[in-house]
């Protein structure tokens, strides 16, 4: 039901995510932004249990502490490894109580959140990291989570090539969204697309087929 996917292009990386907040058969809202802007040049798209998606806020605050402490931002690779470590620790270890960094919860349950981390570093360029809820970490060119991944991965396998321009990449994203909408039985209606490049991380567009308006439904 929840779909997050992303890819790396020429000088940029993008993450697209659906925007439904669902509880069993009820859609709470269809404009829930699941792609967090971590800092000036990083995006974190998270899919999974709604409560655990706030894990991304925790990562964001720790990234900010690092920046204040050291005067320079964390690299994307370092952030990915930090995130993975936090997920791994939550699998087995009881947290220390004195704040080395911010303590979130004393928890031994996994955070049920799958993450695509996209970032741009000055000397490295764009990068994308696939981090799943049991702390798998892979640096990838394209990745996807959720039921939508069955369709988006196939579409990307067919159409993705490295070094795509932004227009080509958005075109591929739209193709993926069409596949999800037409082939997934409980397809989410709306998506948000965010990109990160040398000019920073920002929202690129929404793809809405249903607006959260009272009464009137969109075409």
């Amino acid at each position, binding site marked *: 039901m929840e779909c997050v996917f992303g890819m790396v292009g020429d000088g940029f990386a993008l993450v697209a995510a659906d925007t439904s907040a669902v509880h069993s058969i009820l859609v709470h809202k269809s404009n829930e932004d699941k792609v967090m802007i971590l800092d000036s040049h990083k995006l974190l798209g998270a899919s999974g249990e709604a409560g655990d998606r706030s894990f991304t806020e925790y990562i964001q605050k720790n990234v*900010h502490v690092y920046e*204040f402490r050291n005067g320079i931002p964390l690299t994307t690779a370092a952030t990915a490894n930090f995130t993975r470590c936090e997920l791994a620790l939550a699998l087995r270890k009881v947290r220390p109580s004195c704040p080395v960094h*911010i303590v979130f919860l004393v928890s031994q349950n996994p955070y049920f959140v799958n993450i695509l981390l996209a970032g741009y570093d000055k000397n490295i360029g764009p990068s994308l990291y696939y981090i799943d809820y049991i702390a798998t970490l892979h640096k990838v060119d394209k990745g996807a989570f959720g039921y939508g991944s069955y369709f988006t991965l196939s579409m990307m396998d067919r159409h993705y090539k490295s070094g795509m321009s932004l227009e080509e990449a958005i075109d591929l994203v739209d193709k993926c969204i069409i596949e999800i909408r037409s082939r997934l039985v409980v397809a989410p209606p709306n998506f948000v697309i965010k990109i990160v490049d040398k000019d920073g991380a920002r929202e690129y567009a929404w793809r809405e087929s249903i607006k959260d308006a009272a009464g009137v439904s969109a075409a």
Partner: protein
Amino acid sequence: MARYDRAITVFSPDGHLFQVEYALEAVRKGNAAVGVRGTDTIVLGVEKKSTPKLQDSRSVRKIVSLDTHIALACAGLKADARVLINRARIECQSHRLTVEDPVTVEYITRYIAGLQQKYTQSGGVRPFGLSTLIVGFDPYTGVPALYQTDPSGTFSAWKANATGRNSNSMREFLEKNYKETSGQETVKLAIRALLEVVESGGKNIEIAVMTKEHGLRQLEEAEIDAIVAEIEAEKAAAEAAKKAPSRDT
């Protein structure tokens, strides 16, 4: 590990906490630091004692950011400062995480002062040997604020204050010359206060200016030199005017 339960900071018969007072002594030996609050600008200035030739002065930052809208300068034991600053930075982000709002200047000052107080009432530890000047803009009202904490854990808000070496002279100067200022005038007032006790010149002073729009900005040595030159010129002009008042027709 053995439990540390023996208190080090205990009352004297006449009601003094000597460890805290000795900590204040350590502050008095630290570098001079001054803070001035203007209507739209807050300035922090710190004396830079002569840097050894081989030292990379960029690694010795005396005015630091705690968050995008809060900055801190201190006088006293710099290693103790590092610990407090670290905890404060974490607290700033922790506050943002739990209540989704940035800290107010008063909140983070209260937090730092609370930490300093805790170490005057715990077993096996000594007080932090530093006083801090904390500045920032209220994230909701945009009102500028300047606070000071000391090793005892007390804090209060100020229009302008100084701490560290010769802080009394600087404070006297500020009491005599303080008026509501904004922008560059606030910077000048802070530098004039520092120049009372510090050898003049850009390389002996570190100045940082905080505004609502641009956050904290450290001034370059050349900028500081230029302002110092302006101040000296104004002083000279004032002296000349004093010496020959009858000449003005």
